[in-house]
């Protein structure tokens, strides 16, 4: 029971049903926590409340009234910021005081402030990057609608109240991806006649009369029905592409339990996807039937009954072959959609080597053909079973609806003798192959075009395209796919392009600041820190095994202030230490904004619904200094360190995995709860009830079957976006290694200690993680399949590239690393790496 509860919380990409199912297990604020909030508020140094107010204003306009549509749009960005709020909020802990104290004024003032901020949206939004950040974090905190909806592309109608960041984002998406996607669609439409030709050729197969076969096929190809069905097919292919574009994701969604998997399938979006696909499958089958001619041509045929010769013309009978073909098409369309989600085929795997698109397509082609042929065979088998048992329903329905009679002479197809018709099976199979090949081709082309490397300029040529350049794209609130492409580009440039590396190491012209390097390294380090933090949390969740600890440690809130000073250039490890003391409640609340579903976050009784807590998360987040808010936002501790190097101000280190202090969001919310009396009690009561129901359900075998987590899946889920981190590691380490000879201004040196300590801390966390059970077992490899399962082993890739990255730095710098400041522990570790003993 305990295990179950704990595990039900963390997995990041949760799907809705799973979320709903695990709602009773979700963490809700408890009295203990509220008390602690009080303490914390008291301990915090107060700071001007105007600031928080103005922040709220800047923030408020980013959070719309929260339509579902809006959330869908925002979400990917939120997910892309996923790391950010965590890193940011953890850092913001000491400085979160103002907002916390602000919230003590109660939700009413909160709401008012927000409203007040609302009227002047455009100016503020455009003004501050902080604004975008806030919206990002708000969206991150926003409950994830279960299947990760893709970043919406321009083709998608935006919400009516779309604001400038969103449109900017769409602009960028369009500029980077627009042409590629258009080209991929054009290519798939252009390839359609080829597929159709092949289909026509094979459908009129006649082995005994080859010459006639070929001439017939050629003749058919120019027939009007082929040409007109080509038009329809092109439209279908375009619709398929739109669906591919709408549903793709760069982070696979991994259902952690069986129920989550079912939930993934029955989620409205997916149901819609499946329905549309089965409709399109039916249309494809209709086209195929029309092109095949023969006896599949039309639904209504004149009856062949011998006794009614005179009324033959008048009576129309049902052509069951045609119906069979149509239904098979619908079934195959539906199965395609089902497998699309079950096999995570909406996940875009990036290729391990760069190749030209044509070569990639050519490589995929034989796989695609084989896969389609085999799969069509399986689907045909399944469909035959289905039709054998249930075929009478559609048949009766169609014949009544269209007033068609049953042809008594033909054997019914839902009988064994009717089904065992080789020609029918062949044609249905061929139709399935045709359908799958066209759809998979579209899908493969989309994948190839979307994952092609894109070179972002490091420095803007003109002031106009600042938005386009790499540091900006990395740091901004971009759709996840753009972020992936940017990181990929970073990895490529750090390896292959000396001239672009030079730009990274360059100084800005007036002022001489290494803005490019700072921005890039900051983002990479933030990503890596975020991963460290996530791993630590996962390990704790696994280690504590879900037991709830006594929720108080009065020492804890003081820690950040001490730590702030001493860990400036030290390992974040130090701050990880008090982890054991950390009450599980805090941990729970740490998880909740990121991982849990809306409902777990907001108890049913919360009158404000999602939007309040979203805002709360956003507000806290905006305060973290790494979002470059106003200077005065920084805590006194940080400002006191003024005379340090430029890196210290935006020191990525300082938002290291200081998870114990990363709890502001829940605090805020709990503070709000505190303000209200009765609902809070109601909440408690509900909580108790929930617990009871849970414990009752936990004993039922069937429920356990559905709810039990697959350990492998939850581990995969932790590393589902590890591709980003791998690129960040590779890019960073190559840049650092190249800086040994190429960095003329010593730009990298200032960040080197931070980079090393980040990498070593991550290495520690990863090492620890791999000691957990199940982690180092490899899922079976499926070689040479069209379905990509590389995301299942991303954790191994991460571990390997992390080690390689550290080795790359140590082999390049060698003995010089001994001069780098590092904690004793990290020195020891570095020495191990220098001696090749890791």
């Amino acid at each position, binding site marked *: 029971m305990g295990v179950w509860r704990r595990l039900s919380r963390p997995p990041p990409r949760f799907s809705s049903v799973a979320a709903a199912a695990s709602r009773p297990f979700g963490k809700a604020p408890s009295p203990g926590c509220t008390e602690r909030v009080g303490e914390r508020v008291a301990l915090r140094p107060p700071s001007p409340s105007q600031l928080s107010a103005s922040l709220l204003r800047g923030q408020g306009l980013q959070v719309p009234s929260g339509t579902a549509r809006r959330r869908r749009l925002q979400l990917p960005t939120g997910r892309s910021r996923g790391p950010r709020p965590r890193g940011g909020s953890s850092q913001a802990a000491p400085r979160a005081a103002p907002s916390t104290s602000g919230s003590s004024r109660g939700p009413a003032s909160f709401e008012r402030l927000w409203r007040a901020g609302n009227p002047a949206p455009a100016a503020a939004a455009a003004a501050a990057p902080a604004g975008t950040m806030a919206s990002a974090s708000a969206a991150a905190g926003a409950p994830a609608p279960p299947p990760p909806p893709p970043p919406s592309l321009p083709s998608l109608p935006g919400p009516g109240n779309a604001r400038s960041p969103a449109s900017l984002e769409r602009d960028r998406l369009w500029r980077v991806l627009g042409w590629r996607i258009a080209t991929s669609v054009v290519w798939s439409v252009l390839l359609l006649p080829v597929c159709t030709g092949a289909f026509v050729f094979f459908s009129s197969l006649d082995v005994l009369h080859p010459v006639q076969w070929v001439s017939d096929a050629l003749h058919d190809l120019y027939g009007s029905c082929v040409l007109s069905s080509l038009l329809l097919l092109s439209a279908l292919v375009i619709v398929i592409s739109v669906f591919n574009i709408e549903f793709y994701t760069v982070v696979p969604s991994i259902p952690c339990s069986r129920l989550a998997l079912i939930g993934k399938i029955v989620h409205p979006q997916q149901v819609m996807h499946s329905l549309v696909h089965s409709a399109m499958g039916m249309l494809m089958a209709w086209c195929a039937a029309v092109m095949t001619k023969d006896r599949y041509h039309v639904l209504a045929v004149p009856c062949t009954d011998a006794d009614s010769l005179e009324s033959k013309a008048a009576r129309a009978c049902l052509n069951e072959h045609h119906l069979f073909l149509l239904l098979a098409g619908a079934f195959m369309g539906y199965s395609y959609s089902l497998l699309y989600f079950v096999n995570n085929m909406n996940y875009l795997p990036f*290729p*391990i080597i760069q190749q030209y698109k044509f*070569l990639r397509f050519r*490589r995929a082609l034989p796989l695609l053909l084989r896969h389609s042929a085999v799969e069509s065979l399986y689907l045909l088998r399944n469909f035959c079973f289905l039709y054998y048992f249930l075929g009478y329903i559609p048949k009766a329905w169609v014949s009544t609806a269209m007033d068609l009679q049953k042809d008594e002479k033909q054997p019914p197809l839902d009988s064994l003798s009717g089904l065992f018709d080789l020609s029918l099976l062949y044609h249905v199979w061929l139709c399935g192959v045709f359908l799958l090949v066209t759809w998979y081709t579209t899908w493969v082309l989309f994948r190839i075009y979307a994952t092609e490397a894109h070179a972002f300029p490091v420095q803007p040529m003109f002031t106009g395209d600042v938005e386009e350049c790499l540091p900006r794209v990395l740091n901004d609130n971009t759709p996840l796919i753009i972020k992936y492409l940017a990181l990929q580009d970073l990895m490529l440039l750090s390896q292959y392009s000396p001239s672009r590396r030079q730009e990274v190491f360059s100084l800005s012209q007036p002022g001489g600041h290494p803005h490019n390097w700072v921005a890039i390294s900051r983002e990479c380090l933030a990503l890596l820190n975020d991963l460290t933090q996530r791993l630590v949390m996962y390990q704790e969740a696994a280690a504590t095994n879900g037991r709830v600890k006594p929720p108080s440690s009065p020492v804890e809130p003081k820690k950040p202030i001490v730590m702030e000073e001493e860990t400036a250039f030290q390992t974040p490890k130090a701050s990880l230490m008090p982890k054991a003391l950390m009450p599980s409640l805090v941990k729970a609340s740490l998880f909740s904004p990121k991982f849990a579903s809306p409902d777990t976050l907001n108890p049913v009784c919360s009158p404000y619904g999602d939007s309040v807590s979203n805002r709360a998360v956003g507000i806290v987040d905006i305060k973290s200094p790494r979002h470059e808010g106003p200077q005065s936002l920084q805590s006194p501790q940080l400002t006191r360190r003024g005379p340090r190097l430029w890196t210290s101000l935006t020191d990525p280190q300082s938002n290291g995995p200081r998870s114990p202090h990363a709890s502001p969001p829940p605090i805020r919310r709990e503070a709000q709860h505190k303000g209200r009396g009765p609902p809070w009690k109601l909440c408690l009561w509900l909580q108790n009830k929930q617990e009871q129901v849970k414990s009752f359900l936990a004993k039922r075998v069937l429920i356990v079957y559905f709810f039990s987590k697959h350990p492998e899946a939850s581990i995969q889920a932790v590393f589902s976006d590890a591709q980003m981190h791998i690129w960040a590691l590779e890019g960073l380490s190559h840049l650092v290694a190249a800086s040994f000879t190429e960095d003329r201004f010593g730009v990298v040196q200032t960040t080197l200690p931070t980079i090393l300590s980040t990498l070593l801390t991550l290495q520690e966390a990863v090492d620890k993680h791999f000691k957990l059970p199940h982690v180092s077992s490899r899922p079976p490899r499926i070689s040479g399949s069209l379905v990509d399962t590389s995301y299942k082993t991303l954790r191994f*890739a991460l571990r*390997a590239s992390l080690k*390689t990255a550290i080795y*790359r730095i140590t082999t390049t710098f060698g003995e010089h690393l001994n001069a780098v400041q590092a904690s004793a522990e990290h020195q020891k570790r570095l020495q191990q790496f220098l*001696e*090749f003993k890791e």
Partner: protein
Amino acid sequence: MRAKASRSRRTLGAAREATGSPPPPRRSALKAHFRGAAFVPRGVPSAARLPVPRARGPQEGGTRQLPAAPPCGMCSLSLFPPSPPWDQVTLYEYNNELVTGDNYESPPPDFRGQWINLPVLHLTKDPLKTPGRLDHGTKTAFIHHRESIWKRCINAWRDMGVSGVLNEVANSEEEVFKWVKTASGWALALCRWGASLHGSLFPHLSLRSEDLIAEFAQVTNWSSCCLRVFAWHPHTNKFAVVLLDDSIRVYNANSTIVPSLKHRLQRNVAALAWKPLSASVLAVACQSCILIWTLDPNSLSTRPSSGCAQVLSHPGHSPVTSLAWSPNGGRLLSASPVDAAVLVWDISTETCVPLPWFRGGGVTYLLWSPDGSKVLATTPSAVFRVWEAQMWTCERWPTLSGRCQTGCWSPDGNRLLFTVLGEPLIYSLTFPEHSREGKGQVGGAKTATIVADLSETTIQTPNGEERLGGEAHSMVWDPSGERLAVLMKGNPRVRHGKPVILLFRTRNSPVFELLPCGIVQGEPGAWAQMITFHPSFNKGALLTVCWSTGRIAHIPLYFVNAQFPRFSPMLCRTQEPPAGGGGSTHVPLFTETASISSPWDPSSGTSWSHSPSSHLQ
């Protein structure tokens, strides 16, 4: 310095003036000798050999004796110093000459200070089992039981596919219908005919896989010598050796533990490769798969379990004969002579991408250039390719007379030396400096130039005449680009068919030069099995020779590296006594400047240390 350099040249008989001026005064004399252009890249029809050298001036070596040499051939090898007496072994190179001694265990006194602490191994054949016992299974322990035909068919299907089933059915007695048997017999014959047709296009496909490996291996005697493959770890004093029974031993200079790796699938090991930027990952090319061993360097175990090995296999990709890690440790390439595609592996996710390749019938040897920008891939037919490692496009080089036997890259990856089977010549191919900026082009030179002529010649020794020369079998270039070792094929007229190791001095910039250095000799009766250079030896170069007697000898070649001695943590730090049987003593670090400068000055090697630029890394 320049004066010294030129003086040294003159002592060696060279006529070149200054280091920087490429065209020597006697170009007309050179013309007679240096033929260019045996190879033309893809697109251009393979032209006949052009009789004129390239206009860009000589990029050739062995130039010094030209006036005395006959116009074609023999000039370069005739320059070689006489080989040492037959009972002497080459111990090291110092002061620009190869020093010999009686045996490896007792080096001469003046060498004591120079020895490095590496194990000199002597692995004899005796304790190893003969290759006849390759069957690891317990199959032989059971009494043969004849199963029913269908069961056998299923087994055959699982083991060998369709042809196995056909074979089983055709060979069955009275168990199936007569016509089934006949039909399967016919089908089998058809299969074999098809296979032989394929085999006649690519004759190597009809070989057994052991013969295939032996045919294309870089070692001289793969099938019966007790040392099969040898591989240095790229960063530390650690190496792995494959013995005749396909077990792998890993020796480390700093530890006495010698892990021995065995695996059920580890058969017919043809190549080993340590992953760069890693302490412990070793890729092994086996008969049917690639094994990736992860050996914890801190482990005390001598028999790592086969759980430490990861198995990578790909249908149709066996036997694997060559492996190459990218120098940045990211990707692994594997090749098989029967598979037309090179596979690019991502080890951690176990995914592979086949690089398409339709002609050539297979890939025998892969070599990644040290800067990671290009990959040489040779085929069993008369063509080889150079892949560019960013976008993975390639240039095809048809050779005229045979397949490319071996090759080696210069440290900066801009020059490729290769030899062709059946020709006693070393060719050189240059690539532009910044080809990596231009995406997707290899951009190699249009023609390859001949840089050395290894054809048979007679040299005068104090003991009379001696013949030398032949075809090269394998060729290695040391990581600093200053020494080139060539292992010659056994030639019955040269030293009774013993493979000879020739050592050249090389220089890569500003112009390429190849000067003879000497002959490396082993113990009497020992044949050189394979040669390789230590990848991170910072006192010059360290040539490791595996002898057919099972001895692994390390021959240090001391010289001042032209480039800054690269960082190599282990070699800087380790001072412990050696693990193996090397007759070594405790020694301080070898310092290039203090003790060596004066004796080295007159040598031609010194001047190289002042070459204006070095491109390594």
